[in-house]
């Protein structure tokens, strides 16, 4: 099965929601950095929530399938079912790239509706997440709990290859500055990073 490209369905400068055309079994991962490369700037965000369910909330999905069948087997047996379902992803904006400038700050405008949302490249991730400054927006967002922030650091560290450990410490130090009054939360997040 090939993944479709999700598109922006709700947008604000702080966050946006994108949806796949149908139910997607392998959507973006929690904490992954994604980008909308339409409009004046490329807007980069962190995946804060992923939810899948019926497209029409008034028609909830009923359990089905024979005993012993996997979910994929049930779905394959009823091809029309996938069309009634949808996967939605909530993204928290954490920066934008405008020409040569990459800023770990809120974008001046929201991403365009129906804009295509794609995984950020390693280069984009390094430019936005490199100094750990993007964490300030995550810490301030009510959509990001400790698990999201930890996942964001883990996910972005993969773009640094051999310097992943060094990057993790740099990001952790930025987090320590942001959470200097809340050492318990800092500890909780860093434990999540170290998983």
């Amino acid at each position, binding site marked *: 099965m090939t993944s479709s490209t999700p598109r922006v369905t709700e947008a604000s400068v702080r966050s946006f929601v994108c949806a796949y055309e149908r139910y997607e079994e392998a959507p973006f991962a929690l904490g992954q950095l994604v980008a909308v490369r339409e409009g004046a700037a490329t807007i980069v965000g962190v995946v804060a929530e992923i939810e899948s369910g019926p497209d029409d909330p008034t028609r909830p999905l009923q359990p089905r399938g024979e005993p012993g069948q996997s979910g994929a087997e049930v779905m394959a047996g009823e091809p029309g079912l996938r069309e009634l379902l949808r996967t939605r992803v909530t993204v928290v904006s954490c920066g934008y790239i405008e020409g040569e400038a990459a800023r770990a700050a809120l974008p001046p405008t929201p991403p365009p509706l129906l804009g295509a949302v794609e995984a950020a490249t390693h280069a984009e991730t390094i430019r936005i997440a490199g100094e750990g400054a993007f964490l300030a927006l995550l810490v301030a967002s009510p959509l990001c709990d400790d698990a999201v922030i930890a996942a964001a650091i883990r996910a972005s560290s993969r773009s640094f290859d051999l310097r992943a450990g060094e990057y993790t410490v740099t990001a*952790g*130090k930025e987090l320590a500055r942001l959470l200097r*009054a*809340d*050492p318990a939360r*800092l500890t909780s997040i*860093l434990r999540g990073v*170290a998983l």
Partner: protein
Amino acid sequence: MSGGQRIGIVVGGSLNKALEVRLEPGAAAGLGQYVMTPLGDGASLVGMVTDVLLKSAESGPTACPPPLGDGHAAELLRAVLQDTAVYTQLEVNPYLEVRTSGENSRARRLPVHFAPVALADQAVLDSAFAVSDEAPAFRLGAPLGMDDVMVHVDLERLCERSAGIFGKSGTGKTVLALQVLDAIVANATAAPTNRDRTVALIFDMHNDYGWGLKFQGEGGGERRSLKQRHPSQVAVYTLEDNVPHTDGRVLIGTRDITTEDLGVLAGTADFTRQAVEAAYELENRLGKDWVDEIMADDPSPAAVRKIWRDGDEPDEINWARAASKVGYASGSVDNLRRGLRKIVRRDFVRPGHDQFSGIINGIVQTLQGGKSVVIQFGRHGSDLTSYMLVANMLSRRIWDSYRDVMERAQGEAAKEPNRLVIVIEEAHKFVDKTLAGQTIFGQIARELRKYNVTLLIIDQRPSQIDTEVLSQVGTKFCLQLDSDADIEALVGGMPGRAGLRSVIASLESKRQALVFGHALPMPVVVQPPELTANFAPGASLRARLGGSNGAGKAPTPAGLFG
């Protein structure tokens, strides 16, 4: 001035206490090291690290520290908290404003917040400790952590006020003193006239400064001392008979001893205050033979006539009645006789003779002729009474001689005597709080250069020295000291003394000294050059034609001294 390696930024502080410098991640600086920070007009503020503190930005990380162990989470937590939630801070005593023009001054300004702080580099220290090419300079050593830099002290400035070398036993006081004296003698050799020569009179308790020094450092053995290094510039006198490599013997006749010479012995020869007062009265009545008279079992007929001047002597005459006659208890005179008996028992004290004036004249002529003199005590060195008696008697008379010459000169520079530095060990015995007024050394320290005589005090208990005397010690070489009282005695009254206390307390047990005071623009922790077997005569003195300012271009200690 660009400075050396950057180590942090200024985050607070005060001129009176210390500058607070937050260290950058991975940077380090130790106690006693110099740092510098720009002041904004091209000048740099130079100070010394006097404390290193581990600080916490919030109480959380220290109240709930990251767990021990080598798990990934624990390691990450520790790495993340380091230099964010917890960090290292330096306290820096600001001392000097250094300008590229060379017009340095005491620190009177502070840098702005967040000014960069760097380790002081060689150029800055060259400027801070610059000694004119024309001036003789003592090679003090390499500042802490800067092995390639040599700090110099203007020798004239060092000698123009009293100086002190302090440290507990085995820390290298003698080696340091030998290096200072080597520089003084080498400089005298180069001086064009006798008047320009600063000379030393050294009361050498343990035979260290004459022919050879029993070296206690690595490898042990013996090092050449002043007489071997500068045979024509040093005369050695001894209290013992038939000692090789000496120029004369010090003998004291009983007629030479005055009551003033006894006062200093109250502690060591057990003279009571009443005994010393009785001695004054008896010397007054009996004249120059008073010691020999008192040592007799009973008063001689001559003594009877002098004590009972109106002829009313009793039938039974003894010292108890004599004591009563002069107004003292018999116990006081008994105490005096017992103490004197201990003194005249020494083989350098000759009863009934007047020996001293010839020796004194010889020593004074030697000193004023531009030579230094070492008085070796030999086996008497462990006898504090002998040491104090001889040092006090000689110094008093030589001081009198210098004072007479100075007063006769009436301000005419050409007629003034050359400068004399008197070197005494165990100085606290001479200038302690009870004796400072009775010994000549207290007077010399107080009257400073008025008569061209100063002291070089070598001691391990500075807290026992009279505070007034200690306050007159211009330059202090402080090796390791353990006692808080001793450390406080040295730094009391100094700006930033709390920091200096911690620097002294952190000194290594050997060959590391904090030097501060009159001859230096700011305190410096140095490692004096090692006294190796091939330590050349005069190596402690920078060559006058050395370089632009010597400090930068001089060879390293290792290069010179192996």
